């Protein structure tokens, strides 16, 4: 049997087809349209790529910020549960799942059996999210893809406000004025984000294995600084941005019709 998962995030929509044992295929599009349209498009494109019809899938679940806008889903699950499911499926020893997306950061604590027992999140403030890094890249005038390498090349870390991404602009500009290197500023930006993520991890407790999901897991500079702060290595999925959609597909395979408990 085949199951589908759709994750409508703040910045991108992701779709996954799962057969209960393996990921059959996945797709990610940057969101330009309204949530429902974007979800339909990414889903259809994935089905077309796989040569499948909608009827081939037994159930499709949605998740993410725009989950309720996906009118063609059979049910939906919260971002926390889906990230936890997806993270645990990829790393059967996972006890802590950290999902850092464009506009939110959440940490899920799992029992030894893999059930989600608690979570903490920030979705109110850009600090500790991918947006902070993106804005940092804009202020530094470098493409976002280069932030990781820049930070890894730094010989130290510049002081950057860990709170407001908007106010960080003048802090970064004064740093540049004072001759601080872009590498050290990039490291400083990553450290600010890592501090906030680490606060949330601290609230849940540092229990290995710790899995990092979301686009930020692709940023080697951030990962290095976060690992140093947390104190243990982080497990990184090969495709960290689609794990929420994978989790939604897993939920679809486990649940009957309808909205699940969060």
């Amino acid at each position, binding site marked *: 049997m085949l199951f589908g998962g759709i994750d409508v995030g703040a910045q991108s929509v992701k779709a996954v087809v799962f057969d209960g044992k393996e990921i059959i295929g996945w797709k990610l599009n940057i969101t330009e349209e309204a949530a429902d349209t974007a979800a339909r498009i990414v889903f259809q494109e994935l089905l077309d790529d796989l040569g499948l019809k909608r009827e081939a899938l037994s159930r499709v679940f949605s998740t993410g910020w725009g989950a309720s806008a996906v009118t063609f889903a059979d049910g939906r699950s919260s971002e926390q549960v889906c990230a936890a499911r997806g993270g645990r499926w990829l790393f059967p020893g996972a006890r802590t799942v950290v999902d850092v997306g464009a506009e939110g950061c959440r940490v899920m604590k799992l029992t030894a059996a893999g059930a989600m027992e608690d979570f903490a999140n920030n979705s109110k403030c850009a600090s500790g999210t991918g*947006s902070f890094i993106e804005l940092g890249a804009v202020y530094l005038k470098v493409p976002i893809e280069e932030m990781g390498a820049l930070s890894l090349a730094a010989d130290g870390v510049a002081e950057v406000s860990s709170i407001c991404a908007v106010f960080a602009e003048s802090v970064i500009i004064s740093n540049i004025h004072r001759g601080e290197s872009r590498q050290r500023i990039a490291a400083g930006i990553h450290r600010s984000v890592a501090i906030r993520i680490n606060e949330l991890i601290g609230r849940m407790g540092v229990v290995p294995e710790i899995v990092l999901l979301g686009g930020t897991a692709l940023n080697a500079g951030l990962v290095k600084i976060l690992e140093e702060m947390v104190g243990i290595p982080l497990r990184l999925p090969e495709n960290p941005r689609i794990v929420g959609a994978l989790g939604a597909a897993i939920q679809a395979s486990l649940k009957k019709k309808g909205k699940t408990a969060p």
Partner: protein
Amino acid sequence: MYVAGIDIGSATSKSVIMKEDEIVAAYITETGPESQESAEAAMAGSLKESGLSLDDLEYIVATGYGRINVPFAGDIITEIACYARGVNFFFPKARTILDMGGQDCKAIRIDEEGNHVAFAMNDKCAAGTGRFLEIMAQLLRIPLSEIGPLSLEATEDIKISSMCAVFAKSEAARHLRQGVPKANILGGLHAAIADRVYALIKRVGIEPDFVISGGIAKNIGVVKRVEARMGIPANISPEPQIVGAVGAALFARARALEAGDDLSLKEKRAAAYDPDKQWAYEKIFNDRQDA
């Protein structure tokens, strides 16, 4: 006797020259990366406007975020005290103040003499500040001076669920892409900012009369929405940005009168100018800051 007040804010620097109870000159300029230069530019501006020279000023008080970088000031006093005193000058019946600046917002309760009795402030986050509105004006490509009036033309204030300027901007961008009219998006954004500052004011308690100061007092969209939430009208002085500098000037006058003939004012100012004495002087002023 002529006195002056200087308010070095994070976005703008203001200076005011007063003679007794009259404002003789006022000048506003942008604060650049160097506070001291901004202070000098602000002072030069109002001196030019009034035709006076620095020596004509009996006493100068500095306030604001950059107040320590004003070498020609005789005293430095906190913004809270200066805004309280300044608002009291324009509105003797004022008891609750909302000050919305470029990068912070404050709610202050004051007594009939202009002493502050309570305050709450947000300076950590762009929500509820001028920066929030600047970002939105840029996104919608509408001049900052027009977003307020345009927001009043909204047929509905669409709900913006984030107070964070970064997230609110992406929400607004989504609405824009989906063809929501700009007036309605602005309505929602102005409602979000009004909610934010109203929450701040409630922390100090509401007592009429209510005054809004700072650059954002010029935004009618914010003012009207805050009034609606407060349930009482907002008083706004003709130039709401100079309130802090006026308060500082009033303190300057009080200090000058106190000093009397104890120490000639020229000597006092000379001491303030002396670079070797500068640090010692600043330390004394910092310690006395909670005036």
